[in-house]
């Protein structure tokens, strides 16, 4: 038996299977991207970016209100989620020897695994039921999704800062909290910002918790106790509707959302560049 030939054949076979797997993973990704870009691109014009959701039967219209609403929701969610996540990350990394931290770390892992719709229902119970379907409730739900992501990113980034840098600062007679917020955080700044951007990209596309806690809204921002329009919900509601014009807008919304997330991811990549 010629082992060499068998080995060559096996080698080619494995190579073929690996490429096949790669191909089958890429086909759906690219066909989806192609479909969204091809269909979405034709809907995009100036009106698309400056007009709000059209009423049923109206021609044209745009997603300007949804872009506004999405940015407001993300902004509010970050305002709640980033400080809490950042502080928890600092706690886990800098005060990690306490018994409490093992519990905190475990709970963050659990929170990270909770289905987002459950978090939506939580926000519904806690906020929507008292102040109504509102951007505040949606931002609260999205902030809860952000917290474990920001916490983990902060903890990992801070752990990469060498102990010798902390010791240098402490030996200079700098109090521990000041050492942490100046010397340690500045050494981990880029990695933390990247983590925050990635968590924003994640919540920008969330639809289930937003639907449950805030619901669909066709108008502009009207106060923190009212809903706002949302790109992800536009896709859901418009695509399910029987109206030609709305279905077209769904494709446009999908394209804008993908570009938004892509833009955030690229920003994150650029920021981490040159770190090593």
């Amino acid at each position, binding site marked *: 038996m010629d082992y060499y030939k068998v080995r060559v054949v096996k080698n080619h076979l494995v190579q073929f299977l690996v490429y096949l797997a790669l191909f089958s993973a890429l086909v759906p990704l690219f066909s989806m991207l192609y479909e969204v870009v091809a269909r979405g691109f034709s809907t995009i014009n100036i009106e698309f970016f400056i007009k709000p959701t059209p009423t049923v039967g109206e021609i044209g219209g745009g997603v300007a209100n949804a872009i506004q609403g999405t940015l407001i929701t993300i902004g509010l969610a970050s305002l709640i989620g980033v400080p809490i996540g950042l502080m928890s990350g600092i706690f886990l990394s800098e005060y990690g*020897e306490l018994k409490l931290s093992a519990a905190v770390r475990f709970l963050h892992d659990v929170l990270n695994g909770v289905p987002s719709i459950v978090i939506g229902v939580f926000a519904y119970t806690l906020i929507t039921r008292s102040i109504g379907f509102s951007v505040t409730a949606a931002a609260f739900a999205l902030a809860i999704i952000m917290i474990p992501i920001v916490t983990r990113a902060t903890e990992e980034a801070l752990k990469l800062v*060498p102990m*010798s*840098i902390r*010791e*240098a*600062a*402490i*030996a*200079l*007679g*700098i*109090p521990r909290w*000041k*050492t942490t917020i*100046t*010397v340690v955080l*500045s*050494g981990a*700044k880029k990695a933390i910002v990247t983590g925050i951007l990635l968590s924003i990209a994640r919540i920008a596309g969330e639809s289930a918790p937003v639907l449950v806690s805030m619901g669909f809204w066709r108008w502009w921002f009207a106060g923190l106790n009212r809903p706002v329009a949302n790109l992800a919900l536009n896709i859901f509601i418009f695509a399910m509707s029987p109206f030609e014009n709305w279905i077209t807008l769904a494709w446009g919304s999908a394209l804008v959302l993908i570009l938004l997330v892509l833009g955030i991811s690229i920003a994150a990549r650029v920021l981490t560049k040159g770190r090593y």
Partner: protein
Amino acid sequence: MAVKFDVQNLNAWFGSKHVLKNINMKIEENAVTAIIGPSGCGKTTFIRCLNRMHEITPGARVSGKVIFNGVNIYDNGVDPVIIRRKIGMVFQKPNPFPMMSIYDNVAAGLKLNGVRDKKILDAAVRRSLELANLWDEVKDDLKKSGASLSGGQQQRLCIARALAVQPEVLLMDEPCSALDPIATAKIEALIRKLAENYTVVIVTHNMQQAARVSDYTAFLYLGELIEYGPTEQIFENPKHELTERYLTGKFG
């Protein structure tokens, strides 16, 4: 000569490991005291006990007294942060703050303790860099990153950083072990110069270095202080057999 540190019955532990056993010694002011001994004998732990850096390691514990300027630094109510401002430290590996410029590295101790006046900061940076024999080499590059310097320069930058807060004592933990012979010679010359106005305690693996730079030498072995006295006497006429065997290279 005045006594700067009076160490009484000092014991130190890492968890259940007893690393310093009943150390008693007096350290002279404005002199260089070298701590020598084989690896793991507790040299580094000893100097980290002198500015309360030992206790920042999780599980670390200390008992006994370290009387500094007449006050036991382990007394209740003594703030370790204040102690560390008076007792500076230089580490084994140069550790400048990587995200800061040369200027900011030296000014860090003052800035983070609330000094904002640019004139005071400028003067302190210049004075410290001159004292550390580094000013002439970096005066045109103060805005450059501290990490861009060579190893020997980085170590002198760390010395300047420690001097900027005007300490009374400088603790040095094997400051030359990561440096080449030329950089080592520069640091040693610097240590002699500093001894005019500062109390220096230096841990070293290198016995020749202890002989060259120090006025007093302490020999530690397995966490115990075996012998302590003027450097000449320790090297030329050690009283203890262990000291003699260590100095002549029979073990260690």
